[in-house]
């Protein structure tokens, strides 16, 4: 058993490392192929062509892309994510209006520090959001799955069709208007304490809920039609026990698989937009601003982190799924 897990882990980690390597390369190359010169953003529009070229040489941007990528990976292996092109150590942006003498890389913030500073806030937001989503969708999904032809089946169809139709940009502003502006219940913009995470988390939960409700109800329904359910009933196990001990346990596997690929992707995508709307200083806002400002090192680091997180979560999910359901092999 232990050896199985070990060989499974090694194989999956190797595959995962390859995926992270390739995803990062795609983003790395895309940033450099698509027009939008970071030295223009760093030095401002007034910088002379000569100064700009010197900056490009100093940043290594004039070399061929594969060469740049290899040296980036070499730095990465030492744990060095590089320094931001734009952000200063004090936190503000330094680009644009600078006098155009050239680069001053010493005064730029380290990418790793920038990310570590905002990561906890994003984790808080994601955690609360997922909690809200589970709180609403688990009971509805299970009830809808148990009685798919009844009122709950219809309710889950209506509710998930409605929730999935609420664009996050719109429902966010409606909530800001109703909850913050009119009722004065929760703060809306920025971050000072954990209450600032509630409204964005609700928007995030609205986005995740329909997927979860559907997944739970489909999964419970399909388990009900399996023979083990009827056999259990015939052998005298009560319906209640059958549902709570066996059906729900087996239903968790597809949900877990969903958590792996689709849901984490959705949470990530949702976080970017939600943080942007609420001006919530997390990873998503950092990423969006970095892309607009052509701040390559930050975008690359976030690509590395996001794809690694996805890979690791997928491995953990597959491992847990095989522990819950012993029929699955590694």
């Amino acid at each position, binding site marked *: 058993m232990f050896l199985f897990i070990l060989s499974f882990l090694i194989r999956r980690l190797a595959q995962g490392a*390859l*995926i*992270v390597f*390739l*995803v990062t390369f*795609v*983003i790395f190359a*895309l*940033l450099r192929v*698509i*027009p*939008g010169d970071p030295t223009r953003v760093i030095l401002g529009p007034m910088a002379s062509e000569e100064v700009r070229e010197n900056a490009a040489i100093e940043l290594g941007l004039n070399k061929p892309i594969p060469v740049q990528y290899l040296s980036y990976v070499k730095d990465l292996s030492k744990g060095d994510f590089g320094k931001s092109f734009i952000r200063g150590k004090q936190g503000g942006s330094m680009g644009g209006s600078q006098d155009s003498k050239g680069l001053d890389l010493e005064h730029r913030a380290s990418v790793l520090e920038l990310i570590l500073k905002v990561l906890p806030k994003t984790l808080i937001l994601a955690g609360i959001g997922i909690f809200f989503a589970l709180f609403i969708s688990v009971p509805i999904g299970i009830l809808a799955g148990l009685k798919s032809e009844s009122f709950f089946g219809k309710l889950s*169809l*209506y509710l*998930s*069709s*409605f929730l*999935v*139709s*609420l*664009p*996050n*940009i*719109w429902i966010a*502003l*409606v909530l*800001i*208007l109703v909850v913050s*502006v009119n009722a004065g219940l929760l703060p809306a913009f920025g971050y000072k304490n954990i209450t600032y995470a509630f409204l964005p988390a609700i928007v995030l939960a609205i986005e995740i809920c329909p997927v979860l409700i559907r997944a739970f109800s*489909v999964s419970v329904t399909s388990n009900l*039609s399996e023979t083990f359910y009827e056999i259990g009933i015939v052998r005298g196990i009560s319906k209640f026990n059958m549902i709570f001990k066996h059906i729900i346990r087996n239903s968790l596997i597809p949900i877990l698989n969903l958590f792996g*690929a689709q849901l984490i*992707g959705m949470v*990530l*995508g949702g976080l*970017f*937009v939600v943080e*942007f*709307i609420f001006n919530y200083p997390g990873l998503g806002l950092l*990423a*969006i601003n970095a*892309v*607009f400002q052509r701040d390559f090192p930050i*975008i690359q680091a*976030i*690509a590395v982190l*996001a*794809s690694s997180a*996805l*890979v690791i979560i997928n491995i953990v999910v597959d491992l847990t799924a095989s522990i819950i359901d012993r029929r699955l092999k590694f």
Partner: protein
Amino acid sequence: MNNQNKQKGIFRKILSDGWKSYEMKISVTILLIILIMTVFSPILFENDPVKINIKDKFLPPFFMETGSLKYIFGTDQLGRDLFVRSLVGLKNAFIIAFLSTVGMFLLGCLIGIISGYYGKFTDTVLMRITDIQMSIPVIILAITILGISRPNAFLIIIVLVLAGWPVYSRVSRSAALAEKEKEYVRAAKILGASNPRILFFHIAPVILPPIAFVSILDIARMMIFEAIFGFIGIGVQPPTPTFGTIISSGSQYLINYWWITVVPGFLLVLTLTCLNLIGGVLERSRNKILAGN
């Protein structure tokens, strides 16, 4: 051939089963009304979607005390009719969403069935490409590509297709894997049919229709993405109205003139709910009928 005829029967069965439910009938009716309004909005409504009319700015929608039926949804900060703007925005969003869904369906299913049918090395390479595409967040990809110059509808469709195809390639791959072991495929092979012929004339007609039903849900999803792009500033550029730009420009006046942001959103939510209900009902009918077979 027999198999394909059976498939056509299933296609019709799903549609007629779905049509039995009244939420389907209601959704289709509402969508048709909205569709007619958007297509004929220049004839039906006299107000111009982009004409600035400062003396009529910040007029409230009709249901408020000072509102009038001349501007059903009220006007924005430049005095433009929000109702007509919403209709035009809806039309553009739908066209972009529809074309990108068709694109991701074709690209994803092409890659998926090739991957599933040929297997081995082809399969490994194509599926790893799918994994890589799935690991790149849509918004990052979108801003990287669209953030550069004036993004146009064509570029937006390309980005949405890139973001959406992996799901289709996974689903169609597993369908193709199951299908290629079936007798009729082997029979076609023995009769000397080439691989592309089997793929496109025998396997594709069988596995694509059930997947197509679900893509209605993706049209709605893509319309939301189009709105998000507009909100971030990387969508179709002004003066062409889009929901994203209407909502983002209205958000600056949220406290005093809330309707600019809120009211157009209702039209979008109504449209999307109808689309999603149709997709949801059809999906249930499909699962029911496929399970019954």
